[in-house]
């Protein structure tokens, strides 16, 4: 029984991966495109059920690890398999669960699209790749899945490929992710060289190779190899680079706002809940690799990203972009948690964030869907994603309003929500972490606090501008516009998600994050006891100030009379997203293109020019030698012949054929001889 059991789960897990993949295969092979939604949803539902089953049986149990030989290269055999532990089953449930809801939502949301069968196929590919990513037991397989989710994200961002902005955003996303992938790949090189394997369990498990390797007098020594200790840091940074790109951290974050060009359902699933969390997941998976330097880098990056994205979100007007920057900011929070060693807190936040951010996007999608309907019906021209065109919608779309409200409260982290639990877990750990360090590090927790208040502000701004006050679009039109809540396929997933944003799913006690089962599922943390005052003061302080911030926001955006200067320097800095796109364009894209052109010029003119020059020199040389040949060497031969001919021509004059001439000649000769003879005798 003991031996059979793990295999069963592994096989089931494989089935869970393959089911959504079938939807993609079907897209490639099948001629008949109708019914693709049915296949996709059946596949993902079954996956979800299997995941729940595996989850309920293996959570907090011994990990399961099964492998088969994949290929052999040299003396190394790469084994591929499935690793089921708390981290992977949690992610499995999260991915399949949210995917299922988004699938259902998409039925209505994407209904009118003529290429919807592709949409289902792409989603299937994404789910399969994401599941493979969380279950892979080998970094090489993980990398493959990593790129495949990037690829499916490329396909889905560029789903409306006839729109230039969409196809550009897709390309940008893929290339930005590629930069991170290069880092990931370099990390793989280093680990493979150092340890001769890429097996996650062997490397990072208990008594794994990474832990048993030592750093000794600037040498990083494993059982089979050694290299300078810098490479340990480089390896950490390299892997983190992969995570940075995938999780849209500074400096590789600019693809995520652009990725909002894809369908909103896709944004909610891939660019908010699951794929972008893969970076955090990766950091958690290979956590033992990071040394202090790398952890500090992770902390600072996460903190900076959280702050930067939050300040940008303050001034955006595109509803999806606000949410995108919010996602970046929250991912920064998770990274921060990783950096300070609170892996459990980071993963917990990942889980709670997945639900409420997915819901925020779905609700935004519902708004956009309704407005798009209106735009089409009344033949209007306005930007359906701009919150300046909304306002007062809470009475028109109550379900959307209440679900979005719940999600926003969770994002702010008010009590009774999931966000309260996870955010506090991170903040408190940050204070504890800073306490054990130098004074300068207290910047970290205080900045994190600031970020959470900024969060409260921007999301309140969104809610107030969209749902409160007057509908600004109505201004200037005589006829009354109406909007309705979304159809059932969209409504119910939102309601389910809203329920998931509340505390009961995560913790029995709404106020104490320490009781959360997810945190308890990840061992190795010692701060679950309420050891110090932070555990009480911080939640109270955060929430009090958050509510104050929300009130200010209400006064600014709902009550008339307050207006903010929107053209000062800071405002524009934030609105233009800290000018990162311009900076990258000027500093990277243009130089690379110019450099490529220069290289091509070099290629044409210098390298190929040299070849052609050699050719031309050859031709010139042969021309010269041809000239020499014709006018000197051949001429010499010809002239000799010519001389003979001239002599012949001269002497033939004597041969007239007339006897008498011959005789004269004879006479002359005889006389000459005679004269000569005579005179020579005389002399």
């Amino acid at each position, binding site marked *: 029984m003991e031996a059979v059991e793990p295999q069963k789960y592994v096989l089931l897990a494989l089935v869970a991966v393959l089911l959504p993949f079938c939807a993609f295969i079907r897209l490639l092979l099948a001629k008949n495109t109708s019914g693709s939604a049915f296949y996709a949803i059946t596949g993902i539902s079954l996956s979800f059920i299997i995941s729940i089953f595996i989850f309920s049986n293996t959570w907090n149990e011994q990990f399961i690890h099964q492998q088969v030989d994949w290929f052999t290269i040299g003396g190394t055999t790469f084994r591929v398999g499935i690793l089921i532990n708390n981290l992977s089953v949690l992610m499995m449930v999260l991915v399949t669960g949210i995917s299922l809801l988004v699938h259902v939502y998409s039925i209505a949301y994407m209904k009118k699209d003529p290429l919807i069968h592709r949409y289902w196929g792409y989603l299937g590919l994404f789910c399969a790749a994401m599941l493979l990513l969380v279950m892979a037991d080998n970094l090489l397989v993980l990398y493959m899945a990593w790129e495949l989710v990037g690829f499916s994200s490329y396909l889905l961002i560029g789903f409306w490929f006839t729109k230039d902005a969409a196809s550009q955003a897709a390309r940008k996303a893929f290339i930005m992710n590629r930069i991170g992938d290069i880092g990931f790949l370099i990390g793989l090189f280093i680990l493979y060289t150092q340890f001769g394997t890429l097996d996650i369990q062997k490397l990072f498990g208990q008594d794994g190779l990474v832990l048993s390797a030592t750093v000794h007098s600037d040498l990083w020594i494993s059982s089979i190899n050694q290299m300078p200790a810098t490479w340990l840091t480089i390896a950490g940074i390299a892997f983190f680079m992969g995570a940075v790109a995938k999780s849209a951290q500074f400096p590789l974050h600019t693809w995520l706002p652009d990725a909002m060009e894809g369908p909103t359902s896709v944004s909610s699933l891939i660019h908010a809940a699951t794929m972008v969390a893969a970076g955090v997941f990766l950091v958690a998976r290979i956590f033992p690799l990071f040394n202090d330097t790398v952890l500090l880098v992770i902390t600072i990056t996460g903190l900076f990203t959280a702050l930067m994205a939050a300040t940008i979100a303050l001034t955006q007007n595109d509803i999806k972009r606000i949410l995108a920057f919010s996602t970046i900011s929250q991912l920064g929070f998770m990274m921060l948690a990783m950096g300070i060693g609170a892996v459990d807190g980071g993963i917990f936040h990942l889980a709670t964030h997945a639900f409420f951010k997915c819901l925020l996007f779905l609700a935004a999608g519902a708004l956009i869907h309704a407005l798009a309907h209106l735009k089409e019906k009344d033949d209007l021209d306005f930007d359906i994603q701009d919150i300046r065109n909304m306002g007062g919608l809470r009475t028109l779309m109550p379900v959307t309003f209440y679900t979005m409200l719940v999600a926003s409260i969770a994002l702010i982290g008010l009590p009774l929500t999931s966000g309260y639990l996870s955010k506090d877990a991170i903040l408190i750990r940050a204070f504890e972490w800073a306490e054990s360090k130098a004074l300068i590090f207290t910047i970290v927790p205080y900045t994190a606090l600031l970020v959470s208040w900024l969060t409260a502000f921007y999301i309140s701004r969104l809610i107030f501008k969209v749902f409160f006050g007057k509908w600004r679009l109505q201004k200037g039109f005589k006829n009354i516009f109406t909007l309705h809540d979304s159809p059932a396929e969209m409504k119910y997933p939102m309601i389910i998600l809203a329920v998931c944003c509340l505390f009961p799913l995560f913790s029995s006690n709404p106020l104490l994050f320490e009781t959360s089962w997810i945190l308890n599922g990840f061992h190795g943390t010692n701060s679950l006891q309420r050891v110090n005052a932070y555990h009480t003061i911080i939640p109270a302080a955060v929430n009090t100030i958050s509510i104050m911030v929300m009130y200010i926001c209400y006064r600014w955006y709902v009550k008339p009379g307050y207006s903010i200067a929107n053209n000062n320097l800071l405002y524009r800095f934030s609105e233009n997203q800290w000018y990162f796109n311009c900076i990258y364009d000027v500093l990277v894209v243009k130089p690379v293109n110019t450099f490529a052109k220069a290289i091509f010029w070099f290629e044409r003119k210098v390298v190929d020019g040299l070849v052609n020059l050699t050719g031309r020199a050859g031709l010139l040389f042969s021309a010269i030698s041809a000239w020499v040949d014709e006018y000197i060497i051949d001429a010499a031969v010809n002239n000799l012949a010519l001389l003979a001919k001239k002599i012949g021509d001269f002497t033939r004059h004597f*041969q007239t054929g*007339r006897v008498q001439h011959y005789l*004269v000649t004879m*006479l002359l000769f005889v006389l000459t001889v005679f004269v000569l003879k005579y005179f020579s005798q005389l002399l």
Partner: protein
Amino acid sequence: MIPLAHFLIISAILFCIGLYAVLSKKNAIQVLIGIEFMLNAGILNFVAFSKYDRINSGGQVFALFAIVLAAASVAVALAIILNVYKKYNTIDPSKINELRD
């Protein structure tokens, strides 16, 4: 007694006349006559010089021999001239240049 020099002078004159005829005459018969002149100049010399060989008279014998040869060669030459005339309808040696090739 006529000195030897007179014979030789006559002979030289004869030879020169013959030579001139051979080289310049436009008629093969005249050329033949010129040849005969030159032969006779030679014969005259033989006879004149035979005074130094009184015992054997080699010069005179040779002269006779040469006269016979001359007669024979005239016969041959005339035959050639006839044939040339037949072929070319002329006996002007300057018009016959077949020897050229």
